[in-house]
């Protein structure tokens, strides 16, 4: 099936994006990425601890993957822009996941600051994928600001609660002419399939894979679910009805 996702002119065959946080060991990450088939992989930028310099995450990401640094830690647009510029200089990738968060309890993104950062970075040639609270109006503003896709949360980060924001994301998918990628909160392969059946362009998964007992197998389970959900969406699903409708003919019974 020739069904490529195109973001900023780049063709992707995998609709599963992977985050690299929270894994029990860095060593498992190459295998997770390979088994998931993911082509877009997120990383974060942090200060080096000069007393205990650790290894660089980029060493664990297979060749050929698109590195998408996030701006986690940014509390406003200005900080997000600064992190994005440093990240691009450090890894050479134009892709950036904007993440501006100033709410520590639910880690909800600040759409207003995210729009401001998107505008600046898109003008500087970044391929901007903003993480956002699902909201049609904010998504339109992000599109106008130059976002390459929008990434609404399914549920708060790391909660594994699933597609709790379903209705709002559905509206975005119906109304926005940009890829809508469900990011955050998807805890099970069935959640990912649900998002894809609804017409999401892709999903970004981290916690659900990283904290599974067997992250490599879980990565493959998500990959299959994303494929199944996408195929169902393309196949066109039957309508939901209130009352029963027989699948077998209702005439010619033996009496």
């Amino acid at each position: 099936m020739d069904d490529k996702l195109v973001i900023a002119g780049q063709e992707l065959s995998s609709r599963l994006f992977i985050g690299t946080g929270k894994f029990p060991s860095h060593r498992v990450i190459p295998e997770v990425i390979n088994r998931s088939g993911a082509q877009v992989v997120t990383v974060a930028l942090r200060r080096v601890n000069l007393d205990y310099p650790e290894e660089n995450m980029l060493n664990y990401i297979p060749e050929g993957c698109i590195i998408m640094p996030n701006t986690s830690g940014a509390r406003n647009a200005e900080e997000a822009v600064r992190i994005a510029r440093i990240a691009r200089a450090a890894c050479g990738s134009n892709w950036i996941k904007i993440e501006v968060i100033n709410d520590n309890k639910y880690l909800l993104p600040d759409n207003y600051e995210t729009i401001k950062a998107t505008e600046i970075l898109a003008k500087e040639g970044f391929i901007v994928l903003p993480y956002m609270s699902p909201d049609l109006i904010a998504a339109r503003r992000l599109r106008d600001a130059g976002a390459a896709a929008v990434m609404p949360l399914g549920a708060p980060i790391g909660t594994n609660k699933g597609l709790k924001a379903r209705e709002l994301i559905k509206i975005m998918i119906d109304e926005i002419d940009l890829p809508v990628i469900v990011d955050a909160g998807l805890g099970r392969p069935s959640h990912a399939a649900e998002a894809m059946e609804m017409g999401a362009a892709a999903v970004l998964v981290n916690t659900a894979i990283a904290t599974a007992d067997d992250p490599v197998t879980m990565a493959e389970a998500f990959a299959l679910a994303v494929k199944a959900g996408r195929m169902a969406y393309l196949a066109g699903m039957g309508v939901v009805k209130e009352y029963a409708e027989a699948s077998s003919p209702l005439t010619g019974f033996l009496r």
Partner: protein
Amino acid sequence: MQIIVNGEKTTVNEGITLHDFLKHKGLDPQKVVVEHNYRIVRLEEWPNIVLQENDNLEILKFVGGG
């Protein structure tokens, strides 16, 4: 003299270059990115930058993230 490294005051020798400071800290140049007084500094520039009193350094690297 004192400079600020990742938000903390640090004492370094007068006249030390950025390259020598980072080497002294045991950092692999290929694995970190450095911002010197809020300007991103490329690897090739490190030997030419002589640190001054109250300079601000951010030394960063990529870690796992979602």
